[in-house]
């Protein structure tokens, strides 16, 4: 391997190295401060898992070079409808199916709306964000107590274990890795993200791939909603409201190029989601207040992404 190549390799692994580094810092600081590390790891998994699952699905959208800002609202909507379904049927399976169904429906609606009417997906999702936020309020008003829709805590308690949640993440990740790396779909999506015209002239249907991509993202959103519900079964208007932006941050932090294409990595989401949580925990250990903590986070975020993409600088400013 040439020197250049080694350098490239290191840059490419920057997000992974970043994660390991953050993990190390957390362990060291945790040991020094004598915290309950074992419980902490569990907490970190709990705190990362929803974002990790949703972001992993969203990689399919990002690979296409698209962008979905309504994912958080979508998680909330699907969690709420799932909650309504549970309260009506008393079946967790029904809730699960409702979670997935609703999320996939929303996602497909987004992509079909965009492809039928030739709209830029991103703008469609901005509009969708408003619609879903409003829908959340309406759902809670109509079907809940007004301030919440609650699934009984006992009903989901059995599932609220780290093992189960990690299992969901791993299964979904494996599914996504399979689809992304070992089937035609992943290749076609990367090609579309890299050069849409060329992909079309290679017989790859942008619309079909967008629909598949959004469907995969929808599954991620549905799983996220499910995991979110079993973790915190009381759903309110702000449920999952931070997920939308966290997903974007996680994906980028994990080393995924925002423009999508051939450099897309399916594992970026998980790496990014866990990195951000570790970072948050470290901020807590350092006793930063919200303002300072957020500033430090911002700086580290930019630095990591900067290092990870150091070998991709061009003469012109990126857009």
């Amino acid at each position, binding site marked *: 391997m040439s020197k250049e190549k080694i350098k490239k*390799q290191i840059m490419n692994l920057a997000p992974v190295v970043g994660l390991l580094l953050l993990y190390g810092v957390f362990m060291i600081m945790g040991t020094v401060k004598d915290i309950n590390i074992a419980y902490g*790891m569990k907490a970190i998994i709990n705190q990362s898992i929803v974002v990790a699952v949703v972001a992993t699905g969203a990689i399919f959208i990002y690979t296409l070079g698209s962008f979905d800002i309504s994912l958080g609202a979508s998680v909330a909507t699907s969690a709420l409808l799932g909650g309504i379904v549970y309260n009506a049927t008393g079946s967790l399976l029904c809730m699960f199916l409702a979670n997935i169904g609703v999320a996939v429906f929303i996602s497909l609606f987004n992509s079909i709306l965009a492809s039928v009417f030739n709209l830029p997906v991103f703008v469609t999702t901005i509009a969708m964000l408003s619609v879903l936020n409003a829908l959340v309020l309406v759902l809670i008003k109509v079907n809940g107590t007004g301030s919440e829709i609650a699934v009984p*805590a006992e009903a989901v308690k059995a599932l609220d274990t*780290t*093992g189960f949640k990690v299992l969901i993440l791993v299964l979904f990740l494996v599914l996504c890795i399979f689809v992304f790396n070992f089937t035609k779909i992943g290749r076609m999506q990367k090609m579309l993200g890299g050069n849409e015209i060329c992909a079309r002239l290679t017989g790859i249907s942008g619309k079909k791939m967008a629909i598949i991509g959004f469907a995969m993202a929808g599954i991620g959103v549905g799983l996220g909603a499910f995991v979110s519900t079993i973790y915190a079964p009381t759903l309110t208007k702000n449920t999952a*409201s931070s997920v939308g932006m966290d997903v974007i941050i996680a994906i980028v932090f994990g080393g995924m190029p925002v423009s999508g294409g051939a450099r897309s990595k399916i594992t970026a989401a*998980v790496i990014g989601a866990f990195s951000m949580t570790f970072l948050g*925990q470290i901020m*807590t*250990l350092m006793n930063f207040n919200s303002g300072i903590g957020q500033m430090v986070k911002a700086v580290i975020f930019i630095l990591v992404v900067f290092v990870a993409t150091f070998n991709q600088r061009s003469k012109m400013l990126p857009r």
Partner: protein
Amino acid sequence: MKKLLAMILCIALCMSTVVGCGSTSGEGNAAADTTNQPAESAGTDEDAEEQTTAQGGMDAVAELDMSKTVKIGVLVSDSTTAESLAFQNYYKEYIAKNYNVELMYSDELVDAAGEKSAIDTFITNNCKAVISFSSFDRMAQLNQCADAGVYYAVATGTLTNDEYESVKTNEYYVGAIGPSLDVEFQAGYDMAKHYLDQGKKNFAIFGGALPYYTEMHIYRAAGMLMAMVEAGGEGANYQGATDKDGIVGKIFETATIETGSIGSINILGYVGGYDMDEAWFAKCGQMAQMDGLEVILAVGNGSDFFGTSAQGTDVKIASVDAYASAYGEAMEAGMLDYLAGKFSASIGPIFAATYRAALGSPIRNSEGNALALDQGYWVATSSEQFNEYYAVDSSVESPAYTKDMLDTLLTADYAAFSEFVGKYSFDDIKAIQ
């Protein structure tokens, strides 16, 4: 190659978390057990104490060992309101400096999941107790704390009766001290009454989080309407309702306040929510400038949203919030006429109760149940009054509840404790001081 490596690493990481979680959950339990042990031993102490309290009546408790630093987590639901900042200020600037405690604050929480993960973080950091200002899912918070052997206390608002019944015997539930919904109702009632007594007839109401069914706001609004129904003369009613339950029920039905007449009293306008968009600000503006309007009653912060629009009119604004300097200025400028505010030290007693629980000496009521004590507002109706209150409230040297006062709570029995909390008015506290 590198992709493969990244993938393997990623899967390995997940696997390690699975394996780790197998072991973590085991370890976690073990850890929880270890944390449980002192707590449990504390629990047995407590049981013993309870028995003693039960047998020996209201005897004072033994000396507390305050040599070890106690970590307490604080769940913050809104880190930017005057109230929550005043509270944090009291904890940070006074409590943390005068007691051997380390207070950890959560980030701003917006949902039940946030609460849960914040508590996870507290437990990770070996907090012995959690004081909660966040109310998305209190039962879940309590259960989570109890499972980990961590004491849990509610610092704003109280539990509903049903909720209290279900958890009052939980040894990790310290209790709640704050305005109950009845107190909230009364606060609204008093506010409206204040103006009705002055002969005002034309009101507008700001509903705050009422459209999101935030109960304390609903009860405050209901209190206002109740006062109007009483003052409205023969046959006055709000949408047909004439009593407390009826009015509350009406608000729950529609999540809004209907404008119109209540007997001789008029509700000219209503705005709810915190949309903060152009349309919302326009709604606020036009409400403040309505013809004939005399008073704006806000269930929350009113002057910030209506003050400038009402500038130059005779409209009075009444708010419920905390003692923040901005309100003093607003009162001085005539933009705020009436403030029912929580005083920052009002969260002193719940700290005392939580702290002593963490030290192994929890306080329970005469039946051995968790605390459920009411506490109300300081009402200022003039700038002078505000300044007097504010001087005390904002002081970090001698706040409303000083260390000496709180120290008595650490060893007080239930009767003394509850009496102390019950005397929350400014004058009462001054008298105690």
